[in-house]
């Protein structure tokens, strides 16, 4: 057991680069840590405040029908669903794709313990989210119900168990996909395609579930039944926490721990075989010299970067999922009228919002697809190749920007055309719908590369640490959201101003920012890149 903790600790201290910053003598690094900690704390506070407000509003509604226990049920189900969804497409990467595999596996540690440490890494990261959501929800419940002391005694231990089963379920799927892919020569590509298909199926499946959900007006038994049917552990959880049932409490803990132990033990028996299948490429050894094609440095760098992107399922899944979602939504809107969609989402004025905010709606998915914020960090130990090459460094940086635009712009344009058709936008709205997301794509890509230059993470053992958990990715995502929230907020607040004027203003400002960032990369790119 102590080895599991040792291995987990080893992985966690490198997350977010805290260990490096804590032990460095460089004051700049320490400042970065401080700023990052403040940003993280702000993020945590924002989610906690949002969770508290949302829980309070829901609790007020549930209070009227005498079912405050549904608050805990819903928040627990949401936490579990988010945990499952965010883990499913990184599980394979965390379990199998890490650089220190040989080192770890050569240590006198059981394979199942190595697996356990990988799962616990996912668990700890999800636990933070669980605490941010469930603690405020639990506090609201306590404020409203004034429960007995039992509540607190049961609530806290179960809090620690909530993320376990969703994570195990997600890692089972990740491991199964990895196991299946490992049997083929093109294992990485098959892994990527299968995971992507699973996520798409999950999204489409959730649309179907939305259609069958009772409306908020029919709260009560119907809603409870739906939640309990969707995720049976919710019922067990509610029974334990709000009805103080010790059998439900013990069963919940037992099931969670058992799932963890069984998964680690079973995967431990096939772990090495799967890893070998996934990481071993068959050497042909039959190459004969063919005519080669010469190209410019930019083209060569662009091609290299594009190959890098598609060679990593972690990279594609974490940055490409936004584009996949956008395409699915745009296509599905062709078959669903905005009125129907409004009824489905319980937002009566959806049509109006969609027409005004469609450019920002599309841009949200663009902002989620920032490949540049991790593209420099992913160079890792290969950085010497680019640094010693006789190529102006801004060309290297712009080749990474070009790859990001290749991922976002074509799908954005197609989706915008589909949205123009389904929303029946006029020429002015169509023009904005086309221009604003493209400007956001440029903004996201340029901003991402600058953020990554400022916050590089070149020492990593697992790509997930870079594409999902690095400071640059978090900061770039935050800046992307802020740039979206401001015009969206202004559209809601300034009701007397035409929404299109606000969009146009936002577009002009962002285009100006893009021009500024481009100039900055051209002028300071060399210095920043060599300073990495």
């Amino acid at each position: 057991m102590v080895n599991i903790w040792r291995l987990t600790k080893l992985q966690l201290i490198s997350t977010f680069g805290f260990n490096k910053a804590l032990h460095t003598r460089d004051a700049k690094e320490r400042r970065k840590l401080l700023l990052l900690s403040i940003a993280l704390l702000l993020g945590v506070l924002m989610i906690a405040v949002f969770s508290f407000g949302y829980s309070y509003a829901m609790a007020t509604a549930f209070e009227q029908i005498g079912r405050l226990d549904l608050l805990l049920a819903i928040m627990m189900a949401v936490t579990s669903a988010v945990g499952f969804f965010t883990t499913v497409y990184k599980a394979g990467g965390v379990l199998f794709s890490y650089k220190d595999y040989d080192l770890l596996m050569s240590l006198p540690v059981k394979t199942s313990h190595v697996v356990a440490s990988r799962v616990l890494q996912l668990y700890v990261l999800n636990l933070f989210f669980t605490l941010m959501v469930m603690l405020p929800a639990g506090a609201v419940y306590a404020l409203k119900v004034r429960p007995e002391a039992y509540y607190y005694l049961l609530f806290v231990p179960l809090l620690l168990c909530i993320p376990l089963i969703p994570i195990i379920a997600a890692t089972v799927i990740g491991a199964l996909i990895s196991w299946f892919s490992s049997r083929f020569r093109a294992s990485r590509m098959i892994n990527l395609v299968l995971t992507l298909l699973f996520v798409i199926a999950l999204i489409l499946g959730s649309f179907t579930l939305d259609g069958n959900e009772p409306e908020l007006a029919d709260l009560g038994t119907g809603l409870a039944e739906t939640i309990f049917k969707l995720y049976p552990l919710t019922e067990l959880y509610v029974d334990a926490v709000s009805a103080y049932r010790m059998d439900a409490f013990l069963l919940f803990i037992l099931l969670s721990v058992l799932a963890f132990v069984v998964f680690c033990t079973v995967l431990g028996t096939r772990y090495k075989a799967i890893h070998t299948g996934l990481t071993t490429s068959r050497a042909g050894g039959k190459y004969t010299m063919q005519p080669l094609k010469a190209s410019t440095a930019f083209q060569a760098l662009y091609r290299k970067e594009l190959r890098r992107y598609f060679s990593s399922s972690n990279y594609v899944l974490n940055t490409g999922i936004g584009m996949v979602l956008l395409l699915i939504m745009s296509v599905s809107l062709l078959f669903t009228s905005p009125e129907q969609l409004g009824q489905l989402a319980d937002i009566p004025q959806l049509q109006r919002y969609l027409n005004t905010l469609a450019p920002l709606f599309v841009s949200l998915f663009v902002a989620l697809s920032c490949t540049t914020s991790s593209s420099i960090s992913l160079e890792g130990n290969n950085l010497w190749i680019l640094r010693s090459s006789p190529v102006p460094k801004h060309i290297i940086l712009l080749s990474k920007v070009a790859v990001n635009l290749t991922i976002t712009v074509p799908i954005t344009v197609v989706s915008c055309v589909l949205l123009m058709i389904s929303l029946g936008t006029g020429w002015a709205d169509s023009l904005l719908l086309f221009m604003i997301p493209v400007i956001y794509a440029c903004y996201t890509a340029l901003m991402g590369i600058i953020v990554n230059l400022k916050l590089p993470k070149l020492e990593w053992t697992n790509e997930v640490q870079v594409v999902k958990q690095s400071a640059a990715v978090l900061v770039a995502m935050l800046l992307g959201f802020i740039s979206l929230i401001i015009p969206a907020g202004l559209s809601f607040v300034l009701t007397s101003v035409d929404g299109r004027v606000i969009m146009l203003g936002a577009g002009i400002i962002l285009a100006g920012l893009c021009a500024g960032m481009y100039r900055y990369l051209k002028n300071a790119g060399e210095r920043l890149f060599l300073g990495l």
Partner: protein
Amino acid sequence: MLTIRGFSKSYKGGKKAVHNLNLTVEQGDIYGFIGHNGAGKTTTIRAVVGVMDFEEGEIEIDGISMKKDPLACKSRIAYIPDNPDLYDHLTGIQYLNFIGDLFNVSRKDRELLIAKYADAFQLTPHLGDLISGYSHGMKQKLAIISALIHKPKLLVLDEPFVGLDPKAAHTLKTIMAEVCREGSAIFFSTHVLDTAEKLCNKIAIIKEGRLISEGRTEDVKGENSLEDVFMELIDHG
């Protein structure tokens, strides 16, 4: 070909890794740079190839200042670090073509030189395989080929013989002698003193960031073996 004048490098916290280093590598030289672990070899090499910034001193490649025109300098240099991490997701030939593009090597030249050096290192049949499947030695060979295909005026190699099998090590020595005969120069670090003694016409020994001996190999070692001289200088120099 390479001139280092008054080069010093301090790390954060004030510790000097290299102190007032001066040396000159001329056309045709095979220049061995030796010293114990942490003596400052890699720091010097990284500054020479322009991957590490420095404040004190001047480094010139072919008469061009690394500080003033790093791109012109880099286009004349080939560098192989001590542990060449290459792009695992590319095949060997894709990597060589990529380097050929960065160094603006003509299609004809790169085909000719890749064929020549890949055959010499017996790597041609594996060029179509992903680098992730290469052994350490194969990666080292690929890195060496990538360094040679753009006909550099100065080859800077950090521990180039590590990981090579005896035949590949022999091939590399032959090629090193050949490129220097053709007018290039080589500046390389090594711990293999026997190789340095046989291969280099000039030697520099660095200890705790300072050059403690430098010159023609026969002058540095005199009547003794290079190993004896090195041990004497390191222990008592």
